[in-house]
């Protein structure tokens, strides 16, 4: 069964002339990591909001097509059920932190879905470990940094044990250290859970090595969807559509096009160094 199935999805915000997204077809398998990339205001957030159900429940507009989560139509699911199945992390760490301590923040969602007290502490422990916030539980929002708040945000949605996790530009407001933590958490989540993860990101360099599939949204439609190595093959196409491959990948693409290299393009820094070592003869 597919985790997410999108068929001919379209959405037009009321008051606008054009559809924000149109004719989107997308299948996301269970336990995969999908990155959604592309220029701003081209439909990335709209797409994931439709998958999560924020659209159409919090917005007025015109809906076309269908979105199914594990075979069920999202529009038939209540807010609480959606919260149980799909976790959603936003870009702004401040706006997501609505309580006065980290612990309350984590427990909020769990109380909302009626989890018994005994289970709550177990979940708390698990989730603080995976997001590395164990010593922050007692702190208030103004005692912690933006990066730490974002980890709390991820922890508080993970605590609900959803089957799908959506992150909409989770690192765009964080400093490099904060960003590193978030990508580390994403790696942990990929390794230790069987969550289906959907990430909207500008930081292609960090998110490509984690992705099973990358989707380029341009002008409200899918311009390209493929596993990373294939995705980066035509860097001119990507550049015309407002994104760039990681620098190391672009370098190898250059080598490929000047016939200095054959083989798949490296996706991660480690892969790139390995391939370079292989290309350059060993020297003492």
């Amino acid at each position, binding site marked *: 069964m597919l985790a997410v199935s999108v068929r001919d999805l379209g959405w037009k915000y009321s008051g606008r002339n054009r559809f924000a997204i149109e004719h989107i077809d997308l299948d996301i398998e269970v336990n995969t990591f999908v990155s959604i990339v592309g220029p701003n205001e081209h439909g990335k957030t709209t797409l994931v909001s439709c998958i*999560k159900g*924020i659209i159409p*429940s*919090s917005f007025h507009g015109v809906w076309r097509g269908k979105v199914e989560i594990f075979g069920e139509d999202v529009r038939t699911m*209540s*807010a*609480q*059920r*959606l*919260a*149980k199945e799909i*976790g*959603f992390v*936003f870009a*702004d760490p*401040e*706006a*997501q*932190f*609505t*309580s*006065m*301590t980290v*612990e*309350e923040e984590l*427990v*909020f*969602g*769990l*109380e*909302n*879905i*009626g*989890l*018994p*007290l005994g289970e*709550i*502490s177990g979940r708390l422990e698990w989730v603080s470990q995976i997001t590395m916030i164990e010593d922050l539980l007692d*702190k*208030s*929002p*103004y*005692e*912690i940094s933006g990066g730490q708040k974002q980890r709390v945000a991820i922890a*508080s*949605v993970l605590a*609900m044990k959803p089957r799908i996790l959506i992150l909409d530009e989770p690192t765009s407001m964080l400093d490099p250290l904060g960003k590193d933590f978030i990508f580390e958490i994403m790696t942990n989540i990929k390794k230790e859970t069987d969550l289906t993860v959907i990430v909207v990101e500008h930081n292609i360099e960090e998110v490509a090595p984690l992705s099973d599939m990358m989707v380029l949204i341009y002008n409200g439609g899918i311009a390209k969807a493929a596993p990373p190595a294939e995705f980066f093959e035509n860097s001119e196409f990507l550049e015309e559509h407002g994104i760039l491959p990681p620098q190391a990948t672009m370098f190898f693409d250059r080598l490929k096009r000047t016939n200095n290299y054959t083989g798949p393009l490296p996706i991660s820094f480690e892969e790139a160094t390995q391939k370079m070592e292989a290309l350059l003869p060993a020297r003492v």
Partner: protein
Amino acid sequence: MAQAGVISQRMRRTLLGTVPISSPLYALHPVTRFFTLLFLSVISMFIDLPEINIALLIFIFLYMKWARVDISGLRIYMPLTVTVAIFMFSVSIGFPSKRPEFHTFEFLGITFYLESLYWTFASYWRLMAMLFGTIQYFSTNRERETLVAIRSLKAPFVITYFFSLALRSAGMFMEDLRTIREAERARGLDETSLSLRDRAKLYAMYMIPLFTLAIRRTDEISNALYARGYTISGKIEGGGKRSDYILTHYQIRNIDIALMVAMGLIFIAIAVARIGFGVFTVEESPFRQFLIQLVSGS
């Protein structure tokens, strides 16, 4: 960084100031401490006698010292107390209540009406007792403890949640205000060189970016709440009661119950004494009798 959570080893930041990191007071349940707020900030309404209110004020200070509150940090309230004093006494001296039975005396060419002045004196100390009765609570309780107190009193979830959200919003608001003031200074705005009228206009001006930010954030916050399955009613799908995890950290003990009952009884006793039997009125003040004798004797 400017916002260190731990200011020093002893104090910890809250929305309104600081609270001690450890304190003998924390052995009490937050709801008991909340009772002290209700008790100490209201009880002086029934007591006119400045002797008692001043004693109460001294008690409150000793109590705060015992609770390890940073007394020197309370200096920020000095301007307020002085301003209120100046205002109240100026009005009282400038526009006294001139009853014929009042005793008068002259000083520096001004006629003082003793009873009228004394009434202001009594009101001032009453006000101070109520003020510091409130301040002691906020100097010894974090926002979380207030929320725990309200939830322990079984207030409906919507109310406690909105209260929590209001506190959080207030925090964001103050942070925004700080950034906006800085941003305006970077535009060349020099607050210190402005007249009073211009400053008033300035604060009105700050409202605009504050509202802009608040409006933009409202969308995000409501989406974030939706994503967490929150519904206004606070009810759970499929019935069942909403569990309250945070409360499990706190135990109500015998001493809590004893103190709350004590405060409740004393409160009722004083209220009844005042309303029913006219005790604690200003006429009974020994100091007042003393001053009247002094003035009429001379």
